[in-house]
Structure formats: structure tokens, C-alpha cells
């Protein structure tokens, strides 16, 4: 226990004596949590050109309806289709709507002509949403809206900012925790400090345990800073219990840090460790549902996603912060984290033991 505390103390002093590292640790949450979320979660508005070949009461009514909808930031009438296509090419607009000649008459005849809608589909998600909104506005006269009411759970405004803020905070925790853990150990290996430490009688197990605990605490500290900044600037409210959140994150960070530990135990130089870590980080970040939700993946890939520790961490944070659930619903993931982390730490211990 005494040796464990000594290592812990050493890590603490080492961090305190490196002013640049302290500055980096303080500035990064500030940049990530204070600046980027402003850019996220603003409702994408539609800019559309209208080509009205009919010029009747119906087409003017539809145009007005589009103009008054809050989903559209700009609706302009243009003389012809070629003109609209040019605008589309210069990315001035993202949709073209053409009312065909004789639209009003054909509706009266019960055999309506088709309204043409062209959507810029370079961004697939936005294109589908745009098409949905345009068809919603154009068809809104025909359906009884009252028959169905939609309730937005957990997020009344339907704003994506908090969702992305949480992904950003957990990404920050992971990157800071894992890079510190890996490079700290490999740098000590490179400079033969690990050998010296092991010669003093510290066992590899207590060395590993002290480092894991220390960097877990650093990551939790970054989490608290991130949540505080998020609360002060964006009014992020934690719907669940804060203590449960911190407790859960501390456990769910364990497998991530053990992966970093394992990389450092098997690599010889910092360069090797960094390349392996990039490889690992890019894989787990891409599979963490940060860029593509779980619903969008085929069944066989969701399994890969579900064994990803970063996904567990993000999911736990979403459940507790946004939805206000208890951390208890993540019990399977937490148990898996402990098992996964212990196995990896055991193998790293074997690799570090070899040094002495």
C-alpha cells in the first residue's frame, strides 16, 4: 500500500512539474466544450427556389405556405428551371420546387399533375430530411393532423446540441486519458525509469494499479471540468444523479485505460505506441455511434459496436445525463468493463514483469 501511494505521489508531482502539460489539460476542455458546441445542433433550414409555371391561386398559396414555414430560411421565385439549377450548382440553395403548368386545373379534375421537387443530395441525411419537410408543407392541407400527436421525449426542443456535447466530452476524456497513460509508461520505458522503479521493490501490479487509478482520476477531473463548462455556457442539466454518473464513468474508463496500458506494455518506442494508439482510437471512435447512430448499422456490425468500451461510456453518459436513468441499467456493460479491463491489465503486468 505504501509503495502504491509512493507511485501515485510521483505521478502527481510529475504532472505538477510540467507546466505545458497542465496548460494543455486546461485549454483543451475550454476549446472543445466552450467553442465547438455553438456550431452544432442548429436546425438546418432549407433554402429553395420556386419555378412557378402555373401561376394560379393554388401555386401561389403553396408558395406562401412554404415561405411562412419556419423550416425555410429563403424561398425565392425564379423564372425558369435552368436558372434554379445554376443556383443549385453554386450551392446558393438546396432545393428546387417546380409547379407544372395547369396544376390547378388538374387538381380540380381529380387527376393532379406531379409537383417536381429536386433536392441537393450531396449530404444524404439532410437531403432526406429536406424532402420530408417539403412534402410535409406541400401536403399539409390534405391530412387531418389532429389524429396523431407526437411527443418529443427527453429533449423538448428537438435540439441536437446536448447530444453532440456529450459525445465531445467523452471523446475528450478518452483521448486525454489514453494518450497520457500510454505515453507516460512508454516514455519511462524508453528512458529505463521503469527498470529503476521495479528495482526499488515496487511490484509490477502495484505500479500498474497506481497508474491506472491516477489517470482514471485525471480523466474524471476532465469530465467534471467539461460538465461544469457545459452547464455554465450551454445550460447542460444532468437529469440523473451526478454521483452515479461519476462512479459509472470511472468504471467504464477502466477498459479504455487498460487498452492504453496494454499498448504501452507491448511497444518499444513512443512512435510505435502512438501509431498503434491512432489505429485503435480511430477504430473505436468510428464505431462509437458518434458519427453514425446504432440504428443505421446492419445487424452484424451492431455487435462490433456493442463490444466497444467507448460506446459503453457514451451510452452511459447519454442515459444518465439526457434521459435521467439510473446507472444501474448499464450494469452488464459495467461488469463487462471490469472483466475486460482486468484481463488486459493482467497481460500488461506479464509484459512489464519481463523488463525486470
Amino acid at each position, binding site marked *: 500500500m505504501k509503495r502504491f501511494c509512493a507511485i501515485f505521489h510521483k505521478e502527481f508531482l510529475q504532472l505538477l512539474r510540467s507546466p*505545458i502539460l497542465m496548460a*494543455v489539460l486546461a*485549454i*483543451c476542455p475550454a476549446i472543445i466544450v466552450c467553442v465547438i458546441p455553438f*456550431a*452544432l445542433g*442548429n436546425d438546418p*433550414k432549407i433554402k429553395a427556389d420556386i419555378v412557378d409555371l402555373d401561376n394560379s391561386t393554388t401555386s401561389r398559396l403553396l408558395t406562401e405556405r412554404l415561405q411562412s414555414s419556419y423550416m425555410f430560411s429563403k424561398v425565392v421565385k425564379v423564372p425558369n428551371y435552368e436558372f434554379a439549377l445554376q443556383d443549385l*450548382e453554386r450551392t446558393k440553395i438546396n432545393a428546387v420546387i417546380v409547379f407544372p403548368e395547369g396544376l390547378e386545373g388538374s387538381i380540380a379534375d381529380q387527376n*393532379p*399533375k*406531379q409537383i*417536381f*421537387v*429536386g*433536392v441537393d*443530395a*450531396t449530404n*444524404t441525411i439532410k*437531403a*432526406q430530411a429536406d*424532402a*420530408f419537410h417539403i*412534402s410535409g408543407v406541400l401536403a399539409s392541407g*390534405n*391530412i387531418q393532423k389532429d389524429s*396523431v400527436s407526437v*411527443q*418529443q*421525449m*427527453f*429533449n423538448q426542443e428537438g435540439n*441536437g446540441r*446536448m447530444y*453532440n456535447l456529450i459525445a465531445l466530452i467523452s471523446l*475528450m476524456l478518452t*483521448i486525454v486519458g489514453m*494518450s*497520457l497513460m500510454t*505515453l507516460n509508461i512508454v*516514455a519511462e520505458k524508453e528512458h529505463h525509469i521503469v527498470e529503476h522503479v521495479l528495482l526499488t521493490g515496487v511490484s509490477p501490479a502495484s505500479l500498474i494499479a497506481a497508474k491506472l487509478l491516477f489517470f482514471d482520476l485525471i480523466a474524471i477531473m476532465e469530465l467534471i471540468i467539461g460538465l461544469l463548462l457545459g452547464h455554465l455556457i450551454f445550460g447542460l442539466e444532468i437529469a440523473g444523479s451526478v454521483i452515479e454518473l461519476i462512479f459509472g464513468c470511472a468504471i467504464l474508463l477502466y477498459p479504455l485505460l487498460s487498452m492504453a496500458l496494454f499498448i504501452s506494455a507491448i*511497444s518499444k518506442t*513512443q*512512435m*510505435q505506441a*502512438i501509431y498503434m*494508439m*491512432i*489505429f485503435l482510437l480511430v477504430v473505436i471512435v*468510428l464505431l462509437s455511434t458518434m*458519427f*453514425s*447512430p446504432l*440504428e*443505421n448499422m*446492419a445487424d452484424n456490425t451492431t455487435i462490433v459496436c456493442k463490444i466497444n468500451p467507448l460506446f459503453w461510456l457514451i451510452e452511459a453518459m*447519454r*442515459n444518465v445525463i439526457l*434521459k435521467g*436513468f439510473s446507472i444501474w441499467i448499464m450494469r452488464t456493460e459495467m461488469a463487462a468493463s471490469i472483466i475486460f479491463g482486468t484481463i488486459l491489465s493482467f497481460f500488461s503486468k506479464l509484459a512489464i514483469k519481463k523488463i525486470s
Partner: protein
Amino acid sequence: MKTWNAIKAVSIQEVKYIIRDPVSCLVLFLMPFFLLFGFILSPNLVCSHIAVLNGNHDPRIEELFNRIDAQPNIVIVEHLNSEDQITEAFTRNNIKAVIAACDEGTNIFIDYSDPRVASNVESRIIGVVRSLDKTQDILNIRYVYNPTLQPEAMPVPLLIEIILLIISSIMLSMCVSREKEQGSARLLALTPISSAQLVLGKVLPYAVLSLCHILFIFLLFHYAFGIEIQGSAALFLLLCMLFSLDSMAHGLLFATWAKHQLEVVILCWLVFFIPNVFLCGYVSSIAEMPGALRVLSSIMPGTAFMNAYLGIVCRGTGFAENILWFAIIIAQIILISLLSLSGFTHRYSKSL
């Protein structure tokens, strides 16, 4: 001639360093295969779980549920019995929505914590409800530039950006800060090589390596995803190469500031990688950002790359239309390399 020899010597040193470390070498050459994640990161809804509640056992509602279940992307995984279970249902089975039909009418509860998925699920459910009303569909919607809504087309530019950003910036910054940390920088500073020659010599092997990456990406692009480049392929390659050099310039800047490799890595990830990826217009549309951030975002290399990519690959525009994005990238390469070169030798050799 002397200049060239100096550059060559530094390059050879760097190449040997890479080759003698088989693990790093393997990882470096495997990186472009991250592009294959494009198959996984689909922007389209594949399978969403929902729960339903039919309070009065109304056959018409039962019919509606059957129709919703018949949708390819929506699966009803649970039938609830009472209204008390609605909130609780969201904790299980990754359920995104609950449709509850009771005395007061039909309520749809949707988990809006992720609005993108939520609005997608909502539009599909509403679509089924609408189709029951039998209003004739008079809209003819066409998706321009991506007519089939090919799902792989969307994540590919983001993946190319991630690969080039992180690898190019970390590769160069690592090799500079490594020598600083190990002390061999001081020895190099004693040789008659000027700092510009030193940096050029270090950039050269990594530029060749990233050219390999880009060619790999290009082949995968063509054969694995079958995406056709509407504009000129040469212009696409030039864009990737310039973007990669730009990332290297940023990495060099971090390496001249930081003392240890650890700081360089954290700076590259947090200050360079995260803002570029989140502000490039993929996660959130640039036009909707507040003023100051829109300016910041439009001078980011990631945004310039994204815009030029969409122009060249999707819309098929030429160099003249994308000149602004190329100008931003080239200006950054020049400015940032000059900034990091000034006082480079001084900071480089003073290390530790």
C-alpha cells in the same frame, strides 16, 4: 547541389527510421483501409426498435401496427400493456419510440435525445399513418447529384479527411519532437544543415508516404465503393495532396511549440483533429452556425477540403469554381510553415 545532398541525407535517415520499425511501418501502410468503414457508417436508417401500446384493442390500430411493422426499417420489439410502462420501455432493447393508442387518441413518444435518428423514425411512422388516409402522392422528389442516395457516398469524404488529418499531422510532428526528446536534435543542429533543409528532408519521405495513402484511397474509392468522380481525377488527387501537406504544416507547428511527444499527440488530436472534424460541415451545417464560428469554420482546412471534395466529386465542378478552397489550403501551407520555421533551429536544439 549541396542543398539537395543535405535534404537527401535527412530523408534517408528518416526512411531508415521508419523501415527499421516493422510495427509502425505496418500500421502506417494499413491506415488507408479505414476507408472501408464507409460500409458501416451508413447515413440511412437500417433498423430501429419501437414498442407499441394498444389500450382498447382497437382492430384499426392493430392494422396500423402491422403496417408499421411491415416497414423494412422499423421493428416492433415489444407490446406494452399499460401507460405506466411507456417511460420505462426506453431503458430496454434500444427502443427509440413508443406508439400508444388510448382513449385520448394516438400518441407517439419519440426519444429525441438524438434528433437526427428521431426525426428519421418520426418521418417513417408519420408516413405510414398518412398512407392510411389515402391522399394521393402528387410529389415527384428527385435527389440531385446523388440520385440513388448511395449510402456510402456520405461518410467517405469524412473518412478521407480523418485519415489524412490525423496521420499526416502526427507523422511529421512525431519525427520532429522525437529527435527533440531524445537529444539527437542537438547533434543535427551542429551539422551545417539549415532548418529549411532539415524540415524539407523530413517532409519528403512523409509526403511520398501520404501520396501512397492517397493512391490507396483512390483505388478503394473506385473499386470498393464504385463512386465515380464527376470532375477531374487529377484535381481530386491534387486536392488530397495539398490537404495532406497542410496537415503536416499544422503538425510541424505543434511540434515546434511542444517539448514532449505526449503534448504533440494531445495537441494534434484535441486542437487540430476534433475542431476540424466537428466543424467541417458533416456533423452540422455551416450555414446555420453563429457568425464568428462560421468565419472560423470556413478558414479551417477540413472545411476547405470538404467543400472542394463535394464540388469536384459530386457536382463535377472544375478548378475555377473551387479556387477559393485551394487558395485557403495553399495559403495555410505557406503561412504555417513560415511560422514554424522562424526560430525553428533555436527551439529545436535548445530542447531539454
